[in-house]
């Protein structure tokens, strides 16, 4: 029987939900399983209710599941909220000594977490040990995982002891049936979040400058690059605000280094002016918009895909841009590299749309191959010919003019956010203006060639096609599996390149299926609108969710059936 185990660790902020959850995921990854884990937390530092779901499979897994097999309840609220989610055969671990009023549900198994921990702080690690005991996890492997995580000797030892205590308590006291999972290591996989993958993509692409202002869920990108700054020679500036951040990034891009910024919707609002500055000065820049529910501050620690139409049209006037949206953690690596390449090849801003769900969810992926990473810096002027003839905004057929780096040759690199002539000086001449606008827009011709065929899954001909974009890739794919298992004819199309729009590919799908549904985490169906604009066609329905919670396979499958799939 295939393995598909869903762990849920819940408790209040400050109880170590996140670390216990992560360690669970890490342990299972080290044991050779595929893992997908998401995080649900409130916008507060202590208290409230948080949980971490880690789903373990022996094959591909790209989404969460609602029903829980092993529940780790670090407080009473977790029992109240999540016990109803327990699947058949599920078990809930809790501390019966601190939670006296847990109720009499047979599936509750008490482990004296605090007592075994010796101190409150490590109760979560005791619970981790206990949970892993329920699947006969190899305790030696757990030691390794804990040592790796808690680096510092004393702390690691304490946690190993705590985990062992929980482990043994279950081994001795749990009367139910444990699920004995084998360790199936075949070669190690990475366990990382979407944000981690973006960071690695940026590093692999040679990004050496980032400026940003902290904002959930983009903040961990700046934090990771800051941590790696000394080691890799990357500068990360914590700017005074997002306006400064985007403009610093543009300054660095102009000076010739690969540069990026990252923020969420509100911060992106403040970067809109800079977006056009990059546009008219033809400065390569990568901007990450990690979406969360809006408008305004909205739900700061939750997920949404509500920025699509915004980033497509942000800024006044017409100029080219590209918009990408990784469809899962693995894809985020490649998409980020592509973003840097396109930004430089076409000298324009490239926006990467992610969201809270992708940014903070962990997945196991095969180690990234850096041998295959191709760095394309586009046309660069390095001082050849007569430097005094160099014109930054030379009108060319492709629309791309060779880029010189200030200070690296005798050529002067002149540019202006006023309309300018080929030399970069401001002008009000009508013909020059027209030529520069057209030159810039011509870059879309080349850019369109870069667009690859989007990800599809299922038979080419199906009655129903599910169409999604970005982070929902895994959930939709599993929804397709569910629906097909039920005998329905379903396939899917998942876009990770949104602009230039892959019109042909989408039209093909719309032309074949009887029912076409967009699946989106927003209230109006922003992709559906884009599809209408680009193909003139309406989809047959929209499956939308905008309460800040991620779309799940079951949610999608149910909704699709209601729609008449």
């Amino acid at each position: 029987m295939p393995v598909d185990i869903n762990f849920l660790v819940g408790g209040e902020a400050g109880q170590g939900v996140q670390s216990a959850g992560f360690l669970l995921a890490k342990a299972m990854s080290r044991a050779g399983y595929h893992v997908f884990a998401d995080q649900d937390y409130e916008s507060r530092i202590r208290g409230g209710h948080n949980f971490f779901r880690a789903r373990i499979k022996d094959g591909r897994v790209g989404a969460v599941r609602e029903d829980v097999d092993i529940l780790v309840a670090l407080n009473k609220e977790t029992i109240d909220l999540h016990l109803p989610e327990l699947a058949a055969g599920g078990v809930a671990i809790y501390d019966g000594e601190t939670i006296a009023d847990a109720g009499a549900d047979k599936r509750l198994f008490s482990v004296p977490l605090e007592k075994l921990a010796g101190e409150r702080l490590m109760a979560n690690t005791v619970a981790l040990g206990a949970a892993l005991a329920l699947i006969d996890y190899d305790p030696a492997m757990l030691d390794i995982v804990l040592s790796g995580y808690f680096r510092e000797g004393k702390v690691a030892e304490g946690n190993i002891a705590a985990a062992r205590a929980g482990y043994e308590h279950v081994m001795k006291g749990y009367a139910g049936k444990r699920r004995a999972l084998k360790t199936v290591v075949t070669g190690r996989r990475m366990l990382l979040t979407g944000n981690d993958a973006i960071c690695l993509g940026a590093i692999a692409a040679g990004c050496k400058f980032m400026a940003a202002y902290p904002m959930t869920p983009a903040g961990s990108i700046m934090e990771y690059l800051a941590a790696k700054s000394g080691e890799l020679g990357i500068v990360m500036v914590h700017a005074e605000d997002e306006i400064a951040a985007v403009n610093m990034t543009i300054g660095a891009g102009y000076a010739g280094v690969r540069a990026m910024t990252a923020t969420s919707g509100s911060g992106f609002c403040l970067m809109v002016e800079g977006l056009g500055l990059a546009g008219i000065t033809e400065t390569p820049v990568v901007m990450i918009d990690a979406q969360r529910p809006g408008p305004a501050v909205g739900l700061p620690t939750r997920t949404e895909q509500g920025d699509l139409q915004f980033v497509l049209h942000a800024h006044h006037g017409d100029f080219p841009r590209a918009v990408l949206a990784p469809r899962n953690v693995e894809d985020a690596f490649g998409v980020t590299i592509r973003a840097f390449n396109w930004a430089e090849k076409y000298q324009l801003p490239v926006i990467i749309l992610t969201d809270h769900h992708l940014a903070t969810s962990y997945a196991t992926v095969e180690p990234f191959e850096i041998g295959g990473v191709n760095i394309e810096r586009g046309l660069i002027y390095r001082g050849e010919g007569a430097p005094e003839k160099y014109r930054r905004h030379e009108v060319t057929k492709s629309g791309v003019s060779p880029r010189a780096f200030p200070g690296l040759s005798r050529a002067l690199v002149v540019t202006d956010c006023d309309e300018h002539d080929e030399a970069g000086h401001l002008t009000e001449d009508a013909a020059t203006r027209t030529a520069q606008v057209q030159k810039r827009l011509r870059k879309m011709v080349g850019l369109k060639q870069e667009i690859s065929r989007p990800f599809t899954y299922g038979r080419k001909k199906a009655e129903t096609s599910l169409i999604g974009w970005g982070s929902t890739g895994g959930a939709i794919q599993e929804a397709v599996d569910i629906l097909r298992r039920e005998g329905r004819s379903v396939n899917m199309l998942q876009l990770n390149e949104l602009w230039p729009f892959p019109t042909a590919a989408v039209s093909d799908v719309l032309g074949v299926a009887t029912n076409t549904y967009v699946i989106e985490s927003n209230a109006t169906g922003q992709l559906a609108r884009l599809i209408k604009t680009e193909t003139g066609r309406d989809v047959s329905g929209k499956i939308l969710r905008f309460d800040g919670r991620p779309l799940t396979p079951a949610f999608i499958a149910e909704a699709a059936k209601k729609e008449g799939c």
Partner: protein
Amino acid sequence: MVELSDYSGLNPTWCPGCGNFGILKALNSALVELNIEPHRLLLVSGIGQAGKLPHYTSGNIFNSLHGRPVPPAIGAKIANRELVVVAISGDGDAYGEGGNHFIHACRRNHDITYLVHDNQVYGLTKGQASPTSDTGFVTKTTPSGAAPPINPVTLAIAAGATFVSRGFAGDAEHLTDLIKKGINHKGFALIDILQPCVSFNQKNTFQWYRQRVYKLPEGGEYDPADKAAALGKAQEWGDKIPIGVIYRQEAPTYEDQIPALAGAPLVTREISPAQVENVITEFL
């Protein structure tokens, strides 16, 4: 040797008699005297009459958005520390739209020189009040008189700048010297320049300034390293207006404190595949 002819550009579109001409002259002289070749120079300007200056001289030029010359100047400086980076603003640009960047560039002590053409009015948009317009200055947006002004010198010292000075467009020689000092200073150097706008500021004219400005004595008599004294001196505005270096302090620059910036300029360096492998491995 760099010559004045290396620093020529388009014909200025400024009004005849504008104080900006004096600033342009002083900047060119300073660059020549410092023997900086145009291709080693980066001029980053905002939008306004002041912001047009780079086009009238030579160098690498990034003519940025209104209020935003400082952030791209910082980004470019970090990308290539070998560039001499001079940012150029009007008073609206610097202290209005760009006010937040200004105070934070001061405190972080980025190694750039900042020329603010302070005509106490919005020139390019035709004469509205600016953050430095004198109290009560009547304009089309302040018919009952402007609110009390920002004093850029006080503000810069308060915000932590390490070189704070005031120049006068009517004294190009003194200004040339100030600009040289500013460029030579390691860290954020503000040069707020009194710049008569002959079209829209009938109050703070050449004559008005000439009657008031006096040069701070150099060589001991006035000590720009004394912060309290400098804050006091900075308050002087009225019958007497001091020009010169009002505050100066040696302190590590932002760039000096970033380990990643030790060594060759960022723009000439690469991340090796082995380094990338290393970080990838950490996720296994």
